[in-house]
């Protein structure tokens, strides 16, 4: 029987996975995702697409809140900036979509640097308030932007042709989202195990100790904001392409809460947590709706008349329940199950 895993070399510590089973299952999952559009109906395909671009946004927040421990209540601001950067780039400035997509990472990253500056002086809650203020200022500025930002009416964006591939069909768009999502997962996974990622985690765990160990707080906090904003901005651009209209109303403050709910429910500070959380939070209202419509009666009526409210009640309850009963989130539960499986009938 195994008595534990001992890592003896540095390379073993930073390797993404040393388990053959994990590698095999990853390949299976990837193949399944790649072939999904052939099997799934249009409704389920749309659902998985939503999961994919939500995951990109959740990974953006994971870098900032999960890795670095800087709470942001204003991530919807970066999402908006990304979406608008893409939409303005394509429709107003006539940029090719590839360049506009780059802009949707670049513009929020620039603003991320600006928002990051207060984080050098402010801790915890005060920072959360600053980011909250930031997202309100962004939406006010976009509303006041007149013709350039479309003000209250927003900007219509069509699905683009990118690198010679037409994304207007749902299948093509799904593959595009899958590619972006895999890219985002790889970026965050590799960031976490690199020197930068470990510096960020050190800041989260104890910033004073991290500084003593030679981590430059100014540089790494700003870098965390920059990377996080860039990833979130790309998610915003993908969202804009999906809903094909960019307006301030399509980015409500609730999205910031949803993003927090995702990373809390999944398990703070891990990429696996972000994935599990996204699947859980995005699917929860749909599963709940399916269950209640099966039961029929008043509950089903309520579900159709006030679906939006029910959805937010579920988010809220999920946040409260996970923080109350298992702050480690779904990832923690998954760990427990795995341990129980490996060590049964022993407890440890």
């Amino acid at each position, binding site marked *: 029987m195994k008595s534990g895993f001992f890592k003896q070399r540095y390379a073993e510590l930073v390797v993404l996975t040393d388990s053959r089973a994990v590698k095999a299952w990853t390949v299976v999952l990837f193949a399944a995702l790649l072939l999904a559009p052939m099997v799934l109906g249009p409704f389920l395909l749309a659902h998985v697409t939503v999961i994919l671009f939500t995951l990109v946004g959740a990974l953006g927040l994971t870098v900032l809140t999960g890795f670095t421990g800087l709470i942001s209540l204003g991530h919807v601001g970066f999402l908006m900036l990304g979406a608008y950067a893409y939409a303005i780039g394509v429709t107003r400035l006539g940029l090719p979509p590839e360049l506009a997509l780059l802009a949707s990472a670049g513009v929020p990253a620039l603003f991320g640097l600006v928002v990051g500056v207060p984080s050098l*002086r402010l801790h915890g809650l005060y920072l959360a308030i600053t980011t909250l203020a930031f997202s309100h200022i962004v939406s006010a500025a976009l509303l006041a932007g007149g013709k350039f930002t479309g003000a209250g009416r927003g900007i219509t964006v069509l699905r683009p042709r990118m690198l010679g591939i037409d994304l207007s069909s749902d299948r093509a768009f799904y593959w595009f989202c899958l590619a972006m999502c895999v890219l985002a997962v790889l970026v965050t996974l590799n960031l976490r195990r690199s020197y930068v990622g470990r510096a960020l985690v050190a800041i989260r765990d104890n910033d004073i100790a991290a500084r003593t160990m030679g981590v430059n707080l100014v540089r790494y906090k700003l870098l965390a904001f920059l990377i996080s904003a860039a990833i979130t901005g790309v998610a915003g651009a993908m969202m804009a392409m999906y809903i094909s209209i960019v307006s301030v109303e399509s980015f409500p403050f609730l999205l910031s809460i949803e993003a927090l709910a995702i990373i809390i429910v999944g398990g703070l500070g891990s990429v696996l947590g972000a994935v599990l959380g996204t699947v859980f939070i995005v699917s929860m209202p749909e599963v709940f709706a399916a269950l209640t419509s099966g039961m029929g009666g008043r509950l089903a009526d309520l579900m159709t008349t006030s679906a939006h409210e029910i959805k937010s009640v579920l988010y809220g309850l999920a946040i409260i329940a996970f*923080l109350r009963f298992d*702050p480690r989130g779904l990832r923690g539960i998954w760990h427990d199950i795995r341990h129980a499986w490996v060590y049964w009938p022993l407890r440890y």
Partner: protein
Amino acid sequence: MGYFVELVVSGLAIGAIYGLVAMSFAVIYKATGIVNFSQGELGMLTAYTSWSIATTLGAGGIATVLIAVVAGAVIGMLCERLIMRPMLGEPVLSVVLVTIGLAVVLRSIVTIGWGAAPHKFEVAGVDAVLDIGGMGMRVSQLGVIAMLAAALAGFWWFLKYSRFGVAMRAVAADENVARLMGISTARVQSVAWACASALAGLAGVFFAVIYGLSPTIYELGLKAFPATVLGGFDSVLGSGVSGLVIGVLENLVGGYLPSTLKEVAGFFLILVVLMVRPFGLFGEKRIERV
């Protein structure tokens, strides 16, 4: 000049509402060290509950205020008992995130329960316009300013002289030592939530009476936030006064500059204040020793 004075006076009225909410933020922060992001929602729930009770009873002005205080206190205590009490001793971040969850839940419950359509909160006699030095002011607007003054005086006395107020300050200063001295943290937290919710409820009811009752009242929490930050989270009285500052500032910006700026004027102000004095104008500077 007349326009300016008018803007300032109506700014004071809305500022008094912000001040009440800002005080409620500060009360909870002072007693438990957490920022309650569901403060605006507690105020909204109290406003709706009071509206239901007041319209069935046909209550007058003073009775409505009493109903708001009692309803607010009960709602605050319930939320504390059911949601916050089990989180005692957990990390601050978790507790704060729980209040965010609570906010989302309360907001939706109100919309499901009372519907999204706005209502009119009618109380006899409060729409009467009084003439003060050539300025027309409604009774309800004067009432909320008086209410803020009363709350400020009340809390000043409560925190300084009452046994419980001193206990609250002790818990805020050092929770562990306070417990060693025989103060029940849970009871202090419970009272703080009741007080805060009653204050926010008063603000919600006054807002509903003056501007109408709708599910957007929860935004009071967001609007009062700058006031709390400006005054300092641990300064109950400072937050109340800062509410007036934010209210007047917002009205002046709305009067002289493009109207979209009005919504974010307070946020701009706190961004500046936080950079210079991260602990607010009246807050205590905490010195971290390493």
